[in-house]
């Protein structure tokens, strides 16, 4: 299999480092330990755009963990790690290099977002809060094709962005439940199994919990 190029991973890491530096250099009072919220989310994913050329099914397999450091009650910066598995069964003819291949196929895209995030919030800190945010960083895509008695895969790094909208509700134990939608848009990268470069965007809907620091 081809090895992923180094350019995109390096750019992604640079983006992450920049975001981390922004957080570190932000002119805010010294942070308290409870200024940081950790959120775990169950994630559903829906392929959109070119992604539907490879997988058409919605995915019920995904999760994310996220840290948000509150610079002030209405602004946070942080980071996110996620895993989303989109899959499909297909009998369509697939291009693999110079070959057209058909058969009973299991197609999978496993995506690992590694993002720095910024969020803004509206609403009372003790009540329901709406938030909007954006993530930027690296995406690791692993494309898998099982066809016939063979299994082929390719790993591709992307730089990408992920705008997000959500709402959080206070629940028991000084925690919050989060409901959020995120549009993952990786910039074009490759090569994938067909030898071409692609951008495989998707939308994720997450439900999760976080300890309320405020």
């Amino acid at each position, binding site marked *: 299999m081809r090895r992923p190029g180094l350019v995109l991973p390096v750019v992604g890491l640079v983006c992450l480092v920049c975001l981390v530096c922004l957080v570190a250099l932000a002119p805010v009072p010294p942070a308290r330990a409870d200024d940081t919220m950790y959120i775990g989310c*169950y994630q559903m994913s829906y392929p959109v755009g070119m992604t539907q050329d490879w997988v058409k099914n919605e995915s019920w397999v995904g999760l994310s963990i996220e840290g948000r450091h509150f610079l002030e009650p209405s602004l946070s910066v942080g980071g996110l790690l996620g895993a989303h598995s989109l899959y*499909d069964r297909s009998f369509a003819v697939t291009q693999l290099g110079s*070959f057209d291949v*058909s058969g009973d196929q299991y197609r999978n895209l496993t995506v690992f977002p590694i993002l720095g995030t910024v969020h803004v919030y509206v609403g009372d800190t003790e009540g329901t809060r709406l938030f909007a945010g954006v993530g930027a960083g690296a995406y690791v895509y692993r494309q898998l094709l*099982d066809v*016939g*008695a063979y*299994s082929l895969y390719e790993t591709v790094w992307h730089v990408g962005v992920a705008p997000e909208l959500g709402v959080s509700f206070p629940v028991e134990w000084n925690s919050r439940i989060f409901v959020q939608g995120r549009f993952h848009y990786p910039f074009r990268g490759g090569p994938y199994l067909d030898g071409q470069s692609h951008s495989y965007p998707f939308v994720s809907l997450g439900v999760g919990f976080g300890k309320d620091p405020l």
Partner: protein
Amino acid sequence: MRLPLVCLLLVGFVLALASCTPNRISGNTSFDLVATSYDHGENFASGTTFVLPDTIAHIADGGETLDTQYDQQILARIRSNLQARGYVADADGDPVDADFVVLAVTAITTVDVSSYWGAWGGWWGGYYPGGSYPYYPGYGGTTIQFTTGSVGWGMFDVNRRDPATGATPVVWMAILNGLLDEGNVPARLDKSIDQAFAQSPYVVTSPSPPAPRP
């Protein structure tokens, strides 16, 4: 208002139960694949006659013996598909007089499919006669090897033969691969050969759509 946490956990549990991947393996035909490739510069309408020798070359690992009982069925199916595309079998079978020569080959290969288990959730209830040993549900990390059979053919354009080297280019090739089995091999062979032609609409003597295969 703070929502009862137990209710939210129940919702999460239901979502987790829904997190399942599709089961792809539904029988031996799940392992059948058809791969085709062609010379994009070839004009398949440049000739109409073909020669298909009545023997098939056989390739097997040391000590293995290939079953030849399907050879005539394979050749007949290839021949009828070619005729359905407008090609005419050369009367005297002399490759020098024909526009195309089609040579077929069969082979046996051993495949390691340990990589399936991660993708398919690790369950396989079937036992395939070609396998070295069966899979035992519940035991992770099992590696299984089984034997597959391949049928392939190449279409050579005699009119493009290089007089200096004597080399004749392959302008179209097809490879069929599947598990060796005692079951419905003839039907699987016919279906796969037809599929090779179906996904190769450019193999035709005229630009009009190919006629239905008799």
